[in-house]
């Protein structure tokens, strides 16, 4: 949607229909009128429309996000900046952030995902950190539909194409499939960076006289009417005016930009930095100015452009990728320009910081915008949208499966291994460079990735967890369980959970049921984080994930960073179980609740009932015991999650190439996904260690079987259900890949 600079003049004011086309409501437009005391000029309206979009202003979510715990002694920067930063000791800080690029990836999967990677990287190196790892969390519709296969392949290729070329390893991820994501895939990407404390840079404009230098790619008509505006509209709207001009990622430019920016920080040549993402230049001048309590002059004629004839509004809204705004003391300007030239990137001095708090934009020699910086940012609208529990929750909870007889366990397990949701994701992660930088001690294919921090004895663990089905059945319980699961996932590679970032993917916030799901989710996440003493240091909200009125499952994704202080003995890995080892189950007493389980979904096509709540006391005990067992040198530890104990055992067996026999009393125990449980492979000599650690922490530990043979077998009082390991492995290995050819 191009805003025509010539159409409404100052005197006549803008046509109300223009503001609606730009996604502003009549109330919001009235608010602009009263802020300015006059009709907005077109360029001003463009700036308000992008800055006040849901995507940039968080206007529907902000009141709820305040609920999160955000402080801890190790938090250096909490939510609000481009990324959260925590102190990991030995003179290092870690920066972490997660972002969604759902809508652009639906429009063009390769470029949508690629530019999502580019965007999250900029959030990290804007803070002064070198990005060292990426992680992706993806959701698609079922692979039996050609369109979903196209989206899935395109997104994975886009992440690979950008991440590999820019030179940041993608060390893991998760992929889920459900009908609800058919017309609305989710593409969430997390990035981790490392920095020295003195390199920390904030997105502030600095004092009066600081110059604004635009670095990187030339500005074109990319994404105008794209991410920020489009993110507030639904996919079904195919009117040409809303069709975005797809942004194309350029990982080569980004790589040069990373190296240039890191050199600027190292040499202390910048006061502050802001990346250009959604809302482009509008955001890059107003946010840093507002943070600094200053104003800004911006001369659009000095912006280096890709196409001639762009209007002021287009220049202000453009979402061209691979651009950064550096705020530089005039004395350092020459050095900054020299770095840019040597690194082979373009640089233009486009503005300077002024006192008084106004953003003044000129174009073609004329003043085209004059607005208070804070009116675009801190004073953006804030909504307390109506919310209400959906009428169908009670019905959903009552809708449970009545099992008449015990199902065939081996057949059910094989059926589960054959589902893309549970099958091997090696087709995905073998397309990602996951080894660059020589830090990846535990890579994709495990519960969490574990990266060493070279020059120290430390390690960082990374994971995400999301489960839309569970959160649909009970958003609060589901969300809390995700936090505990993510914490347990970093614990099984020996790490102490340190910080959370969250990506909240939801439907239309104007529907009270969706807002209720959202509020419940935030409550669940907050309660769980509080009970573990883990701060939320950043996140992202993606609303309007609906198509034709159908909302996606409420899908919070929890990203967790964990710290290992002493990377001593080899970290536990799924593939280190061996013939003769015992199989232990650590966790609360068996449960038979199958609500929301993969078993019910896959074998009965059923989604209903109410999932069990988390138990914070058990959660803490499970997390602490997993971590202690990992540092005690237990070879293989694996949490029980989607698919239950049966699947978790099978995963250890397939990875290690050895069978196992597991004793059980009630078949439902094998498929139940209740939280805070994990499996351990231990030599008979390690039995004492397992028992005493579990004992000390007050968590039950039971030896439920042993490894050996060529079958995955489940034994109930001598009656055995067995699945051939090789058949299981082949099935699991092909579950995704074979559906794509």
């Amino acid at each position: 949607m191009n805003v025509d600079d010539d159409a409404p003049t100052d005197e006549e004011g803008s046509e109300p229909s223009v503001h609606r086309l730009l996604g502003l409501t009549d109330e919001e437009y009235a608010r602009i009128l009263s802020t300015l005391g006059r009709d907005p000029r077109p360029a001003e309206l463009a700036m308000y429309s992008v800055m006040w979009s849901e995507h940039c202003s968080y206007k529907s979510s902000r009141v709820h996000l305040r609920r999160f715990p955000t402080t801890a002694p190790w938090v250096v920067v909490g939510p609000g900046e481009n990324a959260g930063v925590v102190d990991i000791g030995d003179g290092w800080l870690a920066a972490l952030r997660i972002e969604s690029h759902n809508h652009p990836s639906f429009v063009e999967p390769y470029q949508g995902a690629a530019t999502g990677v580019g965007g999250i990287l900029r959030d990290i190196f804007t803070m002064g950190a070198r990005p060292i790892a990426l992680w992706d969390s993806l959701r698609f519709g079922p692979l039996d539909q050609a369109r979903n296969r196209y989206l899935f392949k395109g997104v994975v290729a886009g992440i690979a194409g950008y991440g590999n070329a820019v030179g940041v390893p993608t060390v893991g991820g998760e992929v889920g499939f459900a009908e609800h994501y058919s017309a609305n895939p989710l593409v969430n990407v997390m990035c981790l960076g490392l920095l020295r404390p003195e390199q920390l840079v904030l997105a502030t404009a600095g004092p009066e006289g600081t110059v604004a230098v635009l670095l990187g790619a030339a500005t074109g008509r990319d994404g105008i009417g794209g991410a920020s505006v489009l993110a507030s509209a639904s996919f079904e709207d195919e009117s040409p005016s809303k069709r975005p001009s797809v942004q194309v990622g350029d990982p080569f430019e980004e790589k040069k930009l990373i190296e240039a920016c890191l050199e600027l920080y190292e040499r202390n040549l910048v006061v502050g930095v802001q990346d250009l993402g959604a809302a482009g230049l509008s955001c890059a001048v107003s946010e840093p100015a507002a943070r600094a309590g200053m104003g800004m002059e911006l001369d659009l004629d000095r912006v280096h452009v890709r196409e001639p004839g762009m209007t002021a509004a287009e220049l202000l809204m453009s979402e061209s990728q691979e651009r950064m705004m550096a705020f530089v003391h005039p004395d350092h300007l020459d050095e900054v320009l020299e770095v840019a030239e040597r690194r082979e990137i373009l640089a233009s001095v486009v503005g300077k910081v002024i006192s008084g708090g106004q953003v003044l934009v000129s174009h073609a020699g004329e003043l085209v915008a004059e607005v208070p910086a804070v009116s675009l940012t801190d004073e953006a609208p804030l909504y307390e949208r109506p919310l209400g529990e959906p009428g169908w929750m009670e019905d959903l909870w009552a809708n449970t499966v009545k099992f008449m007889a015990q199902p065939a366990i081996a057949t059910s397990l094989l059926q589960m291994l054959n589902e893309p949701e549970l099958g091997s994701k090696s087709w995905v992660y073998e397309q990602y460079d996951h080894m660059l930088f020589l830090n990846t001690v535990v890579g994709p294919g495990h519960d969490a990735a574990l990266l060493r921090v070279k020059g120290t004895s430390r390690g960082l663990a990374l994971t995400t967890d999301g489960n839309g089905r569970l959160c649909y059945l009970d958003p609060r319980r589901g969300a809390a369980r995700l936090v505990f699961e993510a914490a347990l996932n970093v614990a099984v590679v020996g790490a102490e959970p340190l910080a959370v970032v969250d990506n909240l993917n939801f439907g239309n916030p104007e529907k009270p049921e969706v807002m209720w799901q959202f509020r419940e989710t935030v409550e669940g996440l907050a309660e769980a984080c509080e009970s573990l003493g883990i701060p939320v240091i950043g996140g992202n909200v993606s609303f309007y994930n609906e198509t034709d009125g159908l909302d996606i499952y409420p899908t919070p994704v929890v990203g967790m960073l964990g710290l290992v202080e002493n990377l001593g003995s080899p970290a536990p890995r799924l593939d280190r179980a061996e013939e003769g080892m015992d199989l232990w189950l650590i966790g609360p007493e068996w449960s038979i609740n199958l609500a929301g389980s993969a078993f019910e979904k896959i074998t009965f096509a059923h989604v209903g009932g109410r999932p069990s709540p988390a138990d914070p006391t058990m959660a803490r005990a499970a997390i602490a015991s997993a971590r202690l067992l990992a540092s005690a040198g237990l070879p293989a530890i694996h949490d029980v999650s989607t698919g239950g104990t049966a699947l978790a055992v099978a995963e250890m067996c397939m990875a290690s190439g050895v069978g196992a026999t597991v004793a059980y009393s009630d078949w439902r125990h094998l498929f139940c996904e209740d939280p805070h449980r994990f499996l351990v492979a231990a030599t008979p000599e390690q039995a004492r260690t397992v028992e005493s650690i579990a004992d000390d922490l007050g968590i039950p530990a039971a030896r439920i079987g042993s490894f050996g043979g060529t079958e995955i077998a489940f034994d109930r009082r001598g009656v055995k259900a067995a699945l051939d390991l090789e058949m299981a492995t082949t099935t699991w290995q092909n579950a995704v890949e074979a559906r794509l050819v």
Partner: protein
Amino acid sequence: MRVKVEIVRRPEIADPQGVTVVRALRELGFGEVAEARFNRTIVLDLHGTDPVSAQARVEEMCRRLLANPVIEDFEVQVLEP
């Protein structure tokens, strides 16, 4: 029947590859290069068909698989019988 398909990225869509190649050509002394855009061509050999239906079929292939309508346009040209 030989058919040539030219797939052209729409002009408003950025072409980073082109930008990089312009820079490289200029450094090699080809200062006259103002712009470069990368496209793809696909040469298809088809069994037993006539020019008219070949044209239609290949256009259909473009719409269904060969071109990405979000960012590309295409042109089909029947080369020889």
